[in-house]
């Protein structure tokens, strides 16, 4: 198509250059040297594969592509490092698996990949730009022989814009070097721009491609009360009834079902109201309603260490680590824990102490939800033992032990 047009109008269009064909690498290299030595600069060699060393014969300078790649690669490195630092350490900082917000070892892989990516873009697009590609219409394509430049032909063209160019002399020079007929070729009759229909198609496609983006922007900028569109009905819409909604299946019209009569929640079964409440009627018990054995005291001591010592301290003087720390920090809202050896506490009944453990008092929280009634009684028993130990007289020591200590 292009070609028939070119042949018709060839004589009307300005001369673009002279084209000569060669047989092999040796002859074209020699020709390139001759042309270079004759002082031509605006000429080119066309071959189906890169010819080793031809750039020397043609007198070409090394390309600056590596520098472009280096600059882009370094930008990639710094951009990736900056972006990772800014996103993970500044804009949205969060600690994960004990790693620093910006710990270089963990940021190396992404930095490396991004460096390579930008360098590769630079190499590829840099090559295209330096070569002024794509360019689909070239004057040399006028020659039908030139098609073999991508098969097995070797061509050399001297262009008319070379200061040394002289149609006759240049042609004679090339004819001397080549054993094939040398031909003249002309500026391309085709405009370098794309045909109108391709351009309009591209514009239309571009406009269409913007539509989804526009829809997203519009959706993000506007409010609606309608539920979102679910293309895939996943966990957002499950087959279940929500809390507090109506359901006509049941006589009471509720979707939520009450517990069956006699349901007891896990751990809530109270067979003995006295043990569970520490009260007999409305009065607090003054004896522990469960058998007190060594095992129970030991259990109480262990539970006391877990739940009570942080505030009340190991010996119950209200000097636990939390209390000490609060005092050190001079916390304004902190209420000093009671000493269990305060006369006020000592004179309390076991029922009152049990009740305090279960339900809390003042700022002390209730522990009833965290331990069984039995464990609360065990702690109560241990507290009693603790109080006794801190206020004991020699009379509390059994006679046999007293003898060992050598006191009466």
């Amino acid at each position, binding site marked *: 198509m292009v070609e028939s047009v070119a042949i018709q109008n060839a004589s009307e269009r300005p001369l673009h250059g002279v084209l000569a064909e060669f047989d092999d690498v040796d002859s074209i290299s020699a020709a390139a040297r001759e042309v270079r030595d004759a002082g031509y600069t605006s000429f080119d060699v066309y071959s189906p594969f890169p010819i*080793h060393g031809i750039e020397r014969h043609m007198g070409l300078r090394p390309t600056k592509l*590596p520098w472009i790649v*280096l600059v882009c690669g370094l930008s990639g490195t710094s951009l990736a490092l900056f972006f990772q630092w800014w996103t993970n350490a500044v804009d949205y900082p969060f600690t994960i698996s004990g790693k620093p917000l910006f710990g270089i*070892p*963990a940021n*190396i892989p992404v930095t490396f990949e991004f460096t390579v990516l930008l360098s590769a873009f630079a190499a590829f697009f840099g090559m295209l730009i330096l070569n002024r590609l794509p360019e689909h219409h070239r004057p040399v394509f006028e020659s039908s022989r030139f098609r073999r430049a991508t098969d097995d032909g070797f061509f050399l063209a001297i262009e008319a814009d070379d200061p040394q160019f002289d149609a006759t002399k240049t042609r004679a020079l090339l004819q001397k070097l080549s054993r094939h007929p040398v031909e003249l070729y002309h500026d391309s009759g085709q405009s370098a721009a794309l045909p109108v229909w391709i351009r309009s198609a591209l514009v239309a496609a571009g406009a269409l491609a913007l539509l989804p983006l526009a829809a997203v922007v519009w959706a993000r900028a506007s409010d609606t009360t309608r539920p979102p569109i679910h293309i895939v009905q996943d966990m957002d819409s499950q087959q279940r009834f929500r809390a507090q909604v109506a359901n006509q299946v049941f006589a009471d019209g509720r979707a939520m079902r009450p517990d069956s009569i006699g349901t007891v929640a896990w751990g809530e079964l109270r067979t003995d109201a006295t043990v569970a409440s520490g009260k007999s009627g409305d009065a607090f018990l003054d004896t522990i309603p469960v058998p007190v054995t060594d095992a129970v005291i030991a259990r109480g001591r262990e539970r006391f260490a877990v739940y009570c010592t942080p505030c009340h301290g190991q010996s119950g003087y209200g000097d636990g680590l939390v209390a000490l720390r609060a005092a050190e920090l001079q916390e304004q809202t902190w209420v000093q824990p009671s000493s269990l050896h305060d006369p006020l506490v000592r004179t309390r009944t076991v029922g009152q102490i049990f009740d305090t453990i279960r339900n809390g008092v003042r700022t002390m929280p209730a522990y009833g939800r965290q331990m069984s009634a039995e464990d609360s009684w065990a702690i109560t028993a241990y507290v009693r033992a603790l109080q006794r130990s801190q206020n004991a007289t020699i009379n509390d020591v059994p006679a046999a032990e007293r003898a060992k200590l050598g006191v009466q």
Partner: protein
Amino acid sequence: MTHSLAQQTPKLGSRASRWGAIALVIGVVALAAAAYLGWSKGDGFKRLQHAWLVACAFYLSISLGGLFFVIIQHLTRAGWSVVVRRVAELVAANTLVIAILFAPLVVMVLRGDASLYPWADAEHVHAEPLLAAKAPWLDPRFFALRCAVYFGTWWLIGRWLLKRSTEQDAATGVEPTLALERRAAPAMVGFALTINFAAFDLLMSIVPTWYSTMFGVYIFAGSVMSFFAFSVVALRFLQKNGLLDREVNVEHYHDLGKFLFAFVFFWSYVAFSQFMLIWYADIPEETFWFKERMEGSWAVVSTVLLFGHFVLPFAGLLSRHAKRRLGILTFWAVWLLVMQAVDLFWLVMPSAEHGGALVGAIDIACLAAVGGIWAFALTKLAGERALIPVNDPRLSQSLAFENF
């Protein structure tokens, strides 16, 4: 292209004995100095043993890198490298001397001296469950046997490669070359197995509770890198002395430079992966080894390695220009040899210098002692041998070689 090489075979000739004598004198004097310095420390030669291990490992890594290089050239039937191969063959064959120099450390282990290898003390091993679990491997006699196998394998392969290559010099056919090509693959298997486990035994086991599966690869990467650096330095040295100056040209240096660059990068990749995986998983059994090297003045050495062994040489050797300028290339080659020594120092010495990275005269003396004796052995090996494989079938390819 065909030239009068055959008439003028490049040889060390009389230089061999002269250089050999100088090297030997340096080696013996340094050995005496090292021994005195080690004795004067009064630590039961603990510091000396560590410094000695660094020195042996340094020259061993150059030789092993050379061994790898020679095997891979035969394996791939490479043409470009023929003119630089003989120097590599000589270096690769020069492992016996390191075996002899390393032997005292093995003797110390056999005598139960635990100052270098803590597991040499049987009582200590049985007291610590983690060590008791690996007692069958870290057994002094088994260790000695393994050392014999490692050094024996390297020596046999290296000598055989040199011997057949020298045979080719005088042969009429290409039979020696074909034999080298055939046996290169099994040799590579032997090399890979031994260097991997030798790295564990000789260097990793000085901290017997620490382990890293990649350690062998790390040592391998450093070895090959230091060989290429040494190769550049050695060829430049020979050329300064009027040898090989027509045979080895900038194209060969360019290729050596490319490999040097590649292995700088490969070492960095291995070092980073090893560090990052341990840093990230953060398991105390593994991290203590790096923690030791990231505190006090050891942190300085680690930083020196990061920049000196990776960042600077990477940037310095990146461009084609740098690899083709012999001055620049030689500078980086020397630099990287120093870095290889620093790397080995960094691997070994924290066991002896807990307080901080102290480089002493003893370290220099040990490097000079092993280096001198190693270089002496090298001149003995080079002796009357041609410095390039003069009759190699691919010699002309190598001479005519051009980078694109």
